[in-house]
Structure formats: C-alpha cells, structure tokens
C-alpha cells in the first residue's frame, strides 16, 4: 500500500519516477497480479474520481464511472503497451470514454443536470461564495473540451502536455482551449459582480 502512495499524491502531478512505477505495476497487472492493481487503484482513484465528478457533477455518477474505469483497466490490462510510460494517460483515456458513455445515457434519458455539484468551500464569506457559485455555473456552460481542460488543469493538476496526451490534442490547442475557457469564466464572474 505504501508503494501506491509513493506514486504521487492524489490530485497532484505525477513525476517521471511515478510514471515508471506505474508502468512497472502495469506490467505486473498484465500478468494478472491483483496486488499491483490495488496499488494502481490507490494511486489513481482520487484524481480519477475528481476528474469524473468534475465532468459529470455528482458523487454517485463519479463512483459509477470510476468503478467502470478500474474494471476495464483490469480487463484490458494486457493491452496496455508496457514501457510507454503512459499508464496514467491510458487510464484517463478510459475515464474519458466512460464519461462520454455517461453523457450519452443521460441524453437518452433526458436528465441532464443544470449545474455542477463542484466542491463546496468551507469559506463563510458571502461574496466569495457567490463568486464560486457563478464560477460553477460558468463552468457548466463551457464547451465539453474547454471544461475538460479546466478540470484536468486546475482540479487534477495535469500539465499541458499530459492533457494533450489524454485528450488527443496538441499542446498548443490545449493552451488555446484553456485561455478561451478562462476568459469566458472571468467574464462570467465579473459580469455578475455587483
């Protein structure tokens, strides 16, 4: 279990060493080692959950998504290219697909949420709380790509390069998406200011 936590703190950028460790665990997973998979679980579950929750809004949905992500990661563990040191991005790729499937199901059921239940702050200042509420609403109005970049960048602390790898886009595109999203969010927060 200690190994797992050494792979990187939840929600923080992993290091190159962490990527190597993840790769090593992934190779063991490919051989059917469940303990290695547990290590991966504890290393990645927090950030994947935060990612899923930021994308789909509720803890319940995020739990479903994360459970499916790990089940698929085990099921297709032998298909990961060991040595590519890309395991984290590979997991995020599975999570992205799961989130898309989630949205498709929501669209079919006609139950899209109006807002995102992002983390509540412990702050008691009313102005700050109002600003956060506006920001949550503004995030909900971003395009899916912009929202994903914001989530990965600010909630999962991924680098532009990593986000590009996860989303299958170039780093420059990620920067552009981030800039447009931030501009939109800033406008939304300022416009609503008294």
């Amino acid at each position, binding site marked *: 279990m200690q190994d797992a936590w050494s792979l990187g703190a*939840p929600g923080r950028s992993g290091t190159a060493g962490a990527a190597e460790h993840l790769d090593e665990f992934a190779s063991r997973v*490919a051989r059917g080692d469940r303990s290695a998979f547990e290590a991966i679980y504890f290393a990645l*579950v*927090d950030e994947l959950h935060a990612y899923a929750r930021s994308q789909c809004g509720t803890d319940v949905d995020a739990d479903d998504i994360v459970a499916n992500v790990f089940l698929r990661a085990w099921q297709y*563990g032998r298909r990961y290219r060991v040595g590519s040191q890309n395991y984290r991005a590979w997991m995020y790729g599975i999570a992205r697909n799961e989130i898309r499937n989630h949205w498709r199901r929501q669209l079919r059921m006609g139950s899209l949420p109006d807002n995102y239940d*992002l983390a509540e702050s412990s702050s008691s200042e009313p102005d700050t709380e109002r600003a*956060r509420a506006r*920001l949550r609403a503004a995030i909900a109005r971003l395009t899916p790509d912009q929202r994903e970049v*914001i989530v990965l960048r*600010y909630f999962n602390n991924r680098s532009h390069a990593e986000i590009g790898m996860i989303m299958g886009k170039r780093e420059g595109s990620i920067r552009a998406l981030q800039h447009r999203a931030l501009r939109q969010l800033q406008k939304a927060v300022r416009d609503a200011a008294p």
Partner: protein
Amino acid sequence: MLRLRPDHTFEFQLVETLLAQLEPGPLTESHRAALHARIFSRIGAQEPPLPRPGGLPRLRPAWIAIPAGVGIAAAIVAATHYGGLTGGADDAQSGHSVAQGSVLIDGVRGSDLRPGQTLLTVSPTWLAFGAAVRIGLEPGARIRNESDGAHIQLRILTGHVTVAAQGGGVTLIGEGWSAVVASGSAGTVTVTEAQTVIQAMEGNIVVQSNGRSHTLMANSPALVVPAPATQPVSGGAGATGDPAGATLPAGNVINPGVTPAAAPRALANAEAADENPSDVPTPVPSGQPAATPASEGGTARGASASSGNGQLEQPGLQPTPAVAGGSSRASGSQRPASAGTPATGAGASGAAAAGGNANPASPATDPPANNAGTNHGPSPAAGSPSSEGGTGRQTKR
C-alpha cells in the same frame, strides 16, 4: 490586464483563485474503501492482448507512409530514368539516341537525337544509343549525329565529351581528326577553338590525324590536335597560352602541318606501347578492378587499377606534370580492353564494383562520370551482379 506567465499562459488571477477553491479534495477513507470493495469484488478475467501482425514492430502510420511514399517516388523516378536511358538495340543500329538532360536539338528543346541533327547541351547530359554506347556531354558541348543505319558516327563540334562504348564502336569526327572508339573502350574528347584533346580511359581509341594513325590506350598520354586554322604549337609549355597546352609536353601535340617526324615524344611512347606485348589486353580476373575514367576536376580511383597513386589525371583540363610524364597514370589500364569495361557506364561503375572505392566527381562538373556510375549493363570486370552496388557511384538525373 492579463499577465503572461513564463509558460506562455495568461494569468487570470481571480478565476484561478476561485478554481483552486473549487478543487475537489481527496476521497475519504471510507469512500475509497467502499469503492475498492465494489471494484475488486467484480474483477473478472483479463482479455488477451491484441495480436500483432507478423511480429512486426508497432509503427505509427506516418512512419509507414513516409517510406512507402519515398519508395513509390523512387520507383517512378527509376522507371523514368532507366526507361529513358535504356533504349533497344535498334536505337544503336538506327543511330537514334535519347538524351537525358536539358538539350537543344536543332535549336529546339527535345530529347531524341536523330541522324543529321545537331545537339547543344544546356545541362550535363547523357546520351544513349541503345544499351551499346553512352555519350556524356558537359554543358555547352555541341555534337552532330552523322550516324548511318549501320554505324554510330558523331561530329564533335565543341565542348567536352566522354564516350563509352560497349556493344559496338563509335566514330568521332572533328576538325582535322577522326577517332574510332572500339567496343569496350571509353575516352574523352575536348574540343576548343584552338585544339582538340583526346584521351583514352579504357580500351583503345584509334585516332586518324594528318594521315597518320595513333592508337591511344588508357596509359597513353593525351593526344592534342591543334585546330587547322590555328598556329602550330611548337612544343613549349604555354606556347599557345592555353592552360591545356601549357601542361602538355610538346611531344603530345600533333600538328597537322608538321611532318610525322616531328611527332611528339609521348605519342611515340603511345605507339611504342602498342607494340609492347605486355600491353596486349588480357582478361581481368573477376573482382579485379578495372581502371576508371577520370572525371573533370576529380579523380577516379581503383583499388588495383593504379600502380602509382591510383589517380587518373585528365590532361588539358587538369594541368599537372604527372599527365605528361604519365607516372601517375593508372597502371591497371594497361589491360584496358580486357577489363572489358564496357563501357557504357563503364569504367566508373566497373571500378566501383570491383574496387569498391570509385570516387566520381560531382555531378555538376562531370556528367560522364556520373553517368558512368549508372551502369546498366553487366560489367565484365565487375564479375558479379552485386558489384553494381559498389560504393561511390552517383546517379545523374
């Protein structure tokens, strides 16, 4: 005002502060454990890995597409190039040739040179009479095709021409001289207003001038034939002010107006060489390098072709005393005909094949050498097909 960060992203201070406050915290222990139990209770069998076709390494599409594209392009270029160069045997018989390069034929851009037509080269050009004869022409060279149905005959009007004959002889004609390049021979002819310089590189070339016949072999000095209208060269170096003449010994100069008694020393040497039994062409064992045609401004080296420094110097164009003395000539050329260096394409590739270290000059300066590098016919000296892959060859486009 937005500020630019070192990572070239703009700073949105307010929004980013708020986003940091919205960042979800880590899962609680109980939440994590519950999720763990849910996942690990449902873990099943693993899917087999995806099979990789034929054990080939996994390549990105671009890594496949680029070599494939290059391969296709190379195949097209090669087909065009060789298709243009390799005419049928009929071409040689009919005196029709195909030029590879920028040429003017009777003042018009074209590539097919037919009997009676005059060709002026604009760029380094390679002229093919079927697979039998190849003519390399430098820019500015002008020749007239005077072939009849049975024999290839070219009048060299001006410029630097390299001739390589494999399947049959070629007759070259100039002002006050004519030369027959025998089958399996190669040589160069440089025609200027003042003189003509003829040199054999492989095999033998029989030159008729002033009623005399001279056989030039690869080890013979260059033969200089002054133009009939010019003042006879009396033999002093630099007598004509021409750098070529300046470097050649007096003995190498044939003056049409002078009696044969005054024939040059080097020419006498060349003739003496004809009578020397040791110079009788003998077959070169397979794998033994043949001499290589020199190129302007460059040297062609054969591994065993030279007894001296392995260099063939081009007289007239590269003024060096070694030319006159012949001390640095390739001794391998003592059996030129045997080397059978065929020829078309001859020498250079043959040497490259056998010696493996042919060193042709740059394409810009020496089209013949380059063309020689693209030997299409089998080289007797080469001995094996693999020899065609000798190093140092260049292909002229």
